[in-house]
């Protein structure tokens, strides 16, 4: 018995520590790229649609399904909303069961997309119809179409700015810091709420890089070919300096570690928060929490660039599971959703991916600002930025280094802003050298 105990103990240990289990990857192949029937007689049966919108899956999406059934009465549409969309879908993608229609997770490398998704058409067929479809394109085939075209910047409460005595909208980082200072001095509102605890909200800052750079080329064209990505004077350095300075001068929430996203939307709507750095998708959500939605305004991110460029970027791309058992119905849903649901404007706070879509009314005051999509990467450099990013564990689209910057700003870390930037740049240079050997 005594001898056995040791073994039992070891086995117990094994059991306890084997929590980190990964699923095995079974490769499923089906005939991708075959002509999908659009004959209405073939459009029947059941499809499952995955969505990240847990908030409206039981209301708005049900209405969509009802509308869709008016055209295609023989299709039953089921929805599954996932809270941690990226993480859960990526894990499910190692099986064949990840819905018929879904949003393509942003972290799936472009080169791997054809393994998982059905092409929706060739680039030549679709380029005159939709904007920003280059992002998820492999060998001239388009695998995803943006559900919403969003723009990023600062969302602010006009009433708080008025009470604080901010008369002119800040354009440069200096003016922006001054405006935040006025808010702090003259009102009770939090000047800039970071949403540090949620993590993902901090990743929104990265979308403002083109505005700081003042060019639509920087992100995909210049960035993968520079060794000075985080050097003073370069866009990344200037971008996060805004965050660091705000934290350093006490212009953010009192204790960042205990922020709460849901209540922050209400607080911005009510005027307890002056500004947040977010994408336009948040505007409708915030306006929905107040009786005076006109108080919520949009500012392009502060920049010293000569030209103010507000990047239009694709929110999640809608795509089709390559293993779908019911491709005609899935295709019908995708086409209907993009053309007739009006999801982008009503629920996404942006514009349709349709080429002729109008800018939303909140942007009426920005006639002199250039709204445009980013230039795609050069031939052979598709997805290179992401590769360097992952290899170097930098996390451009992860909250980690933004959190470091805030911690350093409020004095919780011994490193300075320049130390952090130098560290990131060293990682960048090393990873880039590794990948462009």
């Amino acid at each position: 018995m005594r001898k056995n105990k040791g073994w039992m103990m070891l086995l117990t240990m094994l059991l306890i520590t084997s929590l980190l289990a990964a699923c095995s990857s079974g490769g499923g192949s089906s005939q991708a790229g075959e002509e999908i029937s659009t004959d209405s007689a073939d459009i029947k049966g059941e499809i499952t649609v995955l969505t990240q919108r847990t908030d409206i899956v039981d209301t708005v999406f049900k209405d969509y399904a009802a509308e869709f059934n008016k055209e295609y009465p023989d299709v039953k549409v089921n929805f599954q909303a996932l809270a941690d969309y990226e993480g859960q879908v990526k894990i499910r993608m190692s099986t064949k069961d990840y819905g018929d229609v879904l949003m393509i997770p942003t972290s799936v490398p472009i080169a791997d997309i054809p393994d998982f998704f059905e092409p929706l058409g060739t680039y030549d067929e679709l380029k005159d119809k939709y904007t920003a479809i280059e992002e998820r394109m492999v060998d001239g085939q388009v695998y995803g179409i943006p559900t919403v075209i969003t723009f990023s910047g600062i969302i602010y409460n006009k009433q708080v700015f008025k009470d604080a005595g901010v008369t002119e909208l800040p354009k440069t980082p200096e003016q922006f810091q001054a405006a935040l200072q006025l808010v702090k001095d003259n009102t009770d509102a939090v000047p800039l709420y970071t949403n540090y605890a949620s993590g993902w909200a901090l990743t929104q800052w990265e979308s403002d890089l083109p505005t700081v750079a003042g060019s639509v080329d920087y992100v995909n064209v210049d960035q993968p070919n520079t060794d000075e990505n985080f050097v003073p004077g370069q866009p990344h350095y200037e971008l996060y300096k805004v965050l660091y300075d705000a934290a350093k001068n006490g212009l953010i929430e009192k204790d960042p570690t205990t922020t709460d996203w849901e209540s922050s939307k209400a607080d911005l709507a009510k005027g307890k928060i002056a500004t947040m750095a977010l994408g336009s998708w948040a505007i409708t959500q915030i306006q929905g929490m107040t009786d005076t939605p006109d108080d919520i305004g949009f500012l392009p991110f502060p920049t010293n660039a000569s030209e103010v460029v507000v990047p239009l970027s694709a929110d999640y791309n809608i795509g089709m599971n390559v293993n779908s058992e019911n491709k005609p119905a899935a295709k019908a849903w995708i086409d209907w959703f993009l053309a007739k649901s009006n999801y982008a404007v009503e629920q996404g706070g942006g514009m349709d991916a349709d080429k002729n879509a109008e800018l939303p009314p909140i942007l009426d005051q920005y006639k002199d600002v250039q709204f445009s999509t980013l230039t795609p990467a050069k031939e052979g450099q598709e997805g290179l930025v992401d590769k360097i990013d992952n290899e170097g564990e930098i996390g451009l689209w992860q909250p980690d280094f933004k959190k470091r910057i805030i911690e350093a700003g409020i004095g919780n870390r011994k490193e300075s802003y320049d130390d952090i930037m130098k560290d990131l740049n060293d990682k960048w240079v090393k990873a880039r050298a590794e990948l462009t050997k």
Partner: protein
Amino acid sequence: MKYLKVSNWGYSAQRIFIICAFSIIPLALLFTFAYLPVINMFKYSFTDWNGYSKRFDYVGFENYTRIFSDPEYFKVFIVSLYYFVATFLQMGLALYFATILSFKVRGKNFFKGILFFPYLLNGVAIGFIFLFFFKPDGTLDMLMHAVGLGQYTQLWLGNPNIINVSLAGASVWRYMGFNFIIFLGAISSIPKDVYEASDIDGANRWQQFRHIILPSITRILQLNLILAISGAISAFDIPYIMTDGSNGSMTFVIQTVHLAFKYGKLGLASAMAVVLLMIVILVTLVQRVTMKGEE
């Protein structure tokens, strides 16, 4: 024909049949959900798989050399020390309550329930409860103001020097009930007449604890200690839910999860998990060897 009826078999054959029949399901589950993933984890640790791609390459020991050549990956074990220290506090408290509640106390079962309850709660719920508890002007601060300790309130999660103490405290609150129940079970198995004999000899409560209870539960104490220490090394749920490893609360397992699911380095993360497994096994072996000396 006659062998088709189990009741016609011999006793020992029946016995073996029953044992196999009863254990096949748990063993199948154990294999499928514990050993198979671990075997796969070993396999992945030699690849550069990103977690979902259909292709990956074997890279030999590259992941391991990377872990052992970069001190960044091991720095986080400093945080484990907080949980390690908290472990002893947790064991002490559990043993104290278990001893007290094994004697005659009023409302005994009520207190047992109270102490064990946190362990039954879901870890995510506990994470959220403690977020509210530690918030500025949250439950803890209000309590302190109420009893006149208002000037000592801190940013419990905002101050990097305190954050791990706060998190380890939440961890103690959660897992103490588990140690407590195990101790209680061990203490209840001590025969009553031993206590009676010691009462006649005039032993007080402390002496009873020192000379009867402690020697009787040494084994359990050791087991709890091993569990608690490996728990400290692989602390995960509370800090992951509450702070996601930010502000200096990063632990080894959170780092592993981040590598796997944020940076798509499942191979490297598997290698880290293997390293962690080795460390835990090593700690266990060391403890077994040192205990051997006592026997």
